[in-house]
């Protein structure tokens, strides 16, 4: 696939890459800006959301997933997919372990349980 004529066409213009580069830098600026706003829990949510968006740009354009066979897509995404298992399933433990996380235990459900008992 690297050598088909249509691939050459996709390689011809630098413009999409330059635009993506500008978008990444701009969004990075936004990301840094949110850090100073005192958004609390939302700051990291926005920042990592932006990081994911930037990653998508890099993967699709710079790393040429665009137009690639679906097999490559599967493997490109599967790393993140598998990490969801690690993050998500570990949280089944950390979110309601007796003493973890020390300050942020799943408070709402505990409150609920407490009110039910009273």
């Amino acid at each position, binding site marked *: 696939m690297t050598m088909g004529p249509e691939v050459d066409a996709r390689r011809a213009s630098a413009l999409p890459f330059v635009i993506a580069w500008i978008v990444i830098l701009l969004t990075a600026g936004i990301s840094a800006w949110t850090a100073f706003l005192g958004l609390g829990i939302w700051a990291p949510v926005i920042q990592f959301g932006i990081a994911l968006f930037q990653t998508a740009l890099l993967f699709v354009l710079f790393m040429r997933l665009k137009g690639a066979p679906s*097999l490559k897509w599967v493997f490109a995404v*599967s*790393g993140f997919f598998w990490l969801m*298992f*690690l993050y998500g*399933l570990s949280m*089944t433990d950390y*979110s309601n*372990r007796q003493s973890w996380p*020390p300050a942020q235990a799943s408070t709402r459900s505990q409150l609920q349980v407490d009110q039910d008992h009273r």
Partner: protein
Amino acid sequence: MSTTTFEGVPTVGPSAAIEPSFLTSENTIGSWLFTRDHKRIALLFFASITFYFFVGGAAATLMRLNLATPEGLLQPAVYNRMFTMHGIIMVWFFLIPSIPTTFGNFFIPMMIGARDLAFPRVNLLSWYVFNLSGLVVLFSLVMGGADTGWTFYVPLSTVYANGYVLAAALAVFINGFSSIMTALNFVVTIHRMRAPGMTWMRLPLFVWAIYAVSVVMLTATPVLAMDTFLLAVERFIGIGLFDIQHGADAILWQHMFWFYSHPAVYIMILPSMGVASEIIPVFARRPIFGYAGMTIALMSIAILSFFVWAHHMFVAGISIYSGVFFSLMTFFVAVPSAIKVFNWTVSLHKGRISFDAPMLYALGFVLLFTLGGVTGLMLATLAVDVDLHGTYFVVAHFHYIMVGATVSAFFGALHYWWPKMTGRLYPEMWARSAAILMYVGFNLTFFPQFVLGYLGMPRRSYTYPPEWQSWNVLSSAGASILAIAYLLPLLYLGWSIFWGRKAGPNPWRATGLEWATPSPPPTHNFEETPVVSLGPYSYDPEDDTFIDQEGVSHAR
């Protein structure tokens, strides 16, 4: 030179001359050490893992000798280091690489009709990295060994253990690279290098199994690599992300460790399932029962294996709701395993069964795997696990899976493919005796440990109360039988290389592409890229005929 005929996969035209076999094509030491031939690399791996198998086995022998009496034979420190090194070496230096790096390396390209793996240099590098990590673990062993158990639980491993934990952890870390390289090669090869006509549903189940296992290796190993890396950092500099003094969580290590190490159990068992699925149809002379179900079961085991890891941690202080979730998932993963056992057994129905050595190993595999599996269910049951966790019951259970099943399958594969690898037949009676001896010795060694476990004998103990001695003596006696059964094949297989009968290309009258080449195969496997027109296992027990994967019928 080439034409594209099928699914964009090009074929290689006939070569001019018949090549010599891969064994004799070149004879210098350099031609072995710098080879890019997957078959030679497979044999290099075979030599390495055989060495580590006997190193790990020696440690096990010392342990069983020590446990024959409550007073013991070894110093406590020596015993602790022996079981740790036994675990580390057997898991990472024998079981995990065992079938993939040897039979996978040798036969995956041949079974899919390719001339080599996709990245032969990476394949060779994998062997060197494996041996590098082996040197590090041997260094740790020679200096006195680590004393943490193969699980390296923090904070014992980071702060309190005295042994060469850093070297052992680094060895595991480096070993991960080897696993990843091998797995990557298999995934890419199986996706990209199949011969024309070799569709996914025509792949032999061994290829499916190796594919499943490669995906698991590829996605689980990095987590262990990071985990051991952080452990090594903490051990080296004295502070790290598992440091309880700084508010870190001691159980985090276990989460990350088991995120790898539970799938690792499937890394060990999936290839053996593939081996059994190859051997049983050949010697039962009938198609495997439920081919599609078998492939689905393999892949669902591979995926589900990532959802069950915390069943090693039911008593570790995790959230009890998390425990309930992981227990449920563990019951789910048992379902595809149950399907496989059922299908293997039904695959014998109305067959024309001969009991050659590979078949004896394969049947032994199914039985030992079933017993390991049902005891695994007991451990998956939360309340029972509270009692059994950390006792000899667990030891017995995972040895049934990892040693009983996997090592049986390893020896089954070795006997099944030995004629192809060396071109020689081994003495059949010796091989059958070794298979039976192995089965008897294994059960005698590990069945008593189930009883000991329920009685409450904790694992990793160098001593025990005298009333448990009778079971321990039985177990030690079984271990000595097992040791003989493991050593026997070395002798008669070694003998057969020089004096065994010539095997011919297809001594078992099997259908796979690997049997369509001479034994031993030429360096480039196939003179001409084969074109596949049939699924595997087209055997007919009624008149004892079969059709190979290229569509050629063979009379009895």
